[in-house]
């Protein structure tokens, strides 16, 4: 296990400690609980709160997006494991500004169940909550069963849009509405070349041949659509883009935001080589790239691979996407 860690069981808590040491002006642990991270800077009074939660091992997802114009809080689980309902509840309570709390998280069994319970607990204390689950991964279920799809890097767009809407002081119903609108126009898909190792388990999440790639892989190593012989970067991008545009047709003149996301072990060079083909692919069908993120935004520790997310834009979404976001891990100040 080629990791620079201390005791495997301390992986998540030491990561959070490191983050709190580094960014004490931006993030804090609620009541000292390392599983409950909230903003340490000034949050606008009366603003709708946007919160999330999920397992560790995906930095900058999840807690890296807590900050201005994005999230207000995050419940942090162990590696690839949901935080408990109780932690989520405390986090929701700690973030509430009286305008309601939107729980915006990835569609994974454990997180779904725990957020359901946490919202029930919140309800008992008269905290208004809403839930929206992100299901952007086209590889994980058919379009008919879209609700079953899991989340991948598209989460970042969901938080970006919702976070901006909340920071503009929109009421929770409108924040939810624009977020749902964004999610309807969002699709992602990825490939994995190598597995990663959960520190406590100490062995790879799956096995794959040296000349193979897993097409449609989830960020915890969930199986994808098929294992294929290795393809070139251009072929890989075309397979992903074909599947995405089959699910959400794009036409000449459409504008999109593009994210080419590295899963943790893939060099930035390769992501730009992929972006090059995404650009050409979209140019061939006359689609205009309005904005792009290229880098590591949602990872699986040291997994090699990448995912593409496409958000179909309109004038409303542009306003929210362009709105300032600033967290210790993410900013659009240099885009």
């Amino acid at each position, binding site marked *: 296990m080629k990791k620079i860690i201390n005791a495997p069981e301390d992986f998540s808590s030491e990561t959070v400690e490191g983050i709190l040491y580094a960014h004490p002006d931006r993030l804090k642990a609620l009541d000292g609980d390392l599983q409950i991270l909230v903003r340490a800077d000034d949050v606008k009074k009366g603003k709708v709160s946007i919160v999330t939660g999920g*397992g560790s091992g995906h930095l900058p997802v999840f807690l890296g997006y807590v900050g201005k114009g994005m999230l207000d809080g995050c419940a942090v*689980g*162990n590696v*690839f*494991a*949901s935080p*408990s*309902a*109780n*932690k989520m509840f405390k986090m929701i309570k700690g973030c509430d500004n009286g305008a309601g709390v939107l729980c915006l998280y990835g569609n994974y*069994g*454990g997180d*779904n*169940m*725990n957020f*359901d*319970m946490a919202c029930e607990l919140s309800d008992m204390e008269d905290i208004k909550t809403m839930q929206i689950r992100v299901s952007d991964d086209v590889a994980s279920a058919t379009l008919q069963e879209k609700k079953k799809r899991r989340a991948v890097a598209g989460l970042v767009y969901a938080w970006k849009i919702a976070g901006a809407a909340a920071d503009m002081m929109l009421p929770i119903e409108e924040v939810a509405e624009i977020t749902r609108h964004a999610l309807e126009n969002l699709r992602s898909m990825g490939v994995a070349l190598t597995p990663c190792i959960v520190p*406590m*388990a100490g062995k790879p*999440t799956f096995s794959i041949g040296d000349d193979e790639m897993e097409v449609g892989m989830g960020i*915890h*190593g*969930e*199986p994808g659509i098929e294992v294929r012989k290795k393809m070139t970067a251009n072929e890989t991008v075309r397979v992903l883009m074909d599947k995405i545009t089959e699910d959400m047709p794009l036409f000449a003149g459409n504008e999109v935001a593009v994210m080419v996301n590295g899963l943790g072990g893939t060099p930035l060079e390769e992501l730009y080589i992929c972006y090059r083909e995404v650009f050409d692919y979209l140019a061939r069908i006359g689609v205009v790239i309005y904005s792009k993120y290229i880098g590591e935004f949602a990872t699986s520790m040291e997994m090699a691979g990448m995912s593409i997310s496409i958000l179909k834009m309109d004038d409303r979404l542009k306003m929210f996407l362009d709105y300032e976001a600033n967290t210790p891990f993410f900013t659009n100040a240099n885009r």
Partner: protein
Amino acid sequence: MDKLKLQNIKEIFAKISSTMDDNKDLLVELDSKAGDGDLGISMSAGFRAVINSDAMEKNNIRKFLMSAGMAVNEASPSSLGTIIFIGMIGGAKRLGDIEEIDARDAGNFFLGSAEAVMEKTGSKPSEKTILDSIIPAAQSLINSEKDLLESFADAYEAARQGMLATKEMKAVHGRAAYYQEKSIGFQDGGATVGMLIFESIYKYLQNQ
């Protein structure tokens, strides 16, 4: 003994905890077939947390079960921990404020648990989950005319049969669902946990 008091229930949780420790490897193996292989670790940690939590200081069955559920949720880093938590809250609500539990009450607790899980997660029997061992056992308890020990002997057997039946089922929930048809042929890890819970209670009662 024909009724379980709070103290018995606490001791039963200690027994469940040691059973999960003993079966850690088996559960890991079952969960590895069509899952991520953490079930043994998760159950062992979840139930150990109960006996080290402040639940043990509660002086009322409902409160004990609720905070035991919270402890499982907190400490077991996987789905079944959450499902057991949901079940324990639902079951405890069904029991209400009760001082002692007989076989029928126990059956109601487990049925209430299963119903809460079904309501919250959308799962149903025959979908290769813990429900497939818990529900037959709960029904057996509710319909039992025998004494406590024998009732739980029957329930244990019903859970075991339910567990074995999962071999033929196709997974619909959790990670196993990704394996679709490939999940057929393997016994479900969660159903095995359900069986182990009844095994623990039965063995505890045998030693009284």
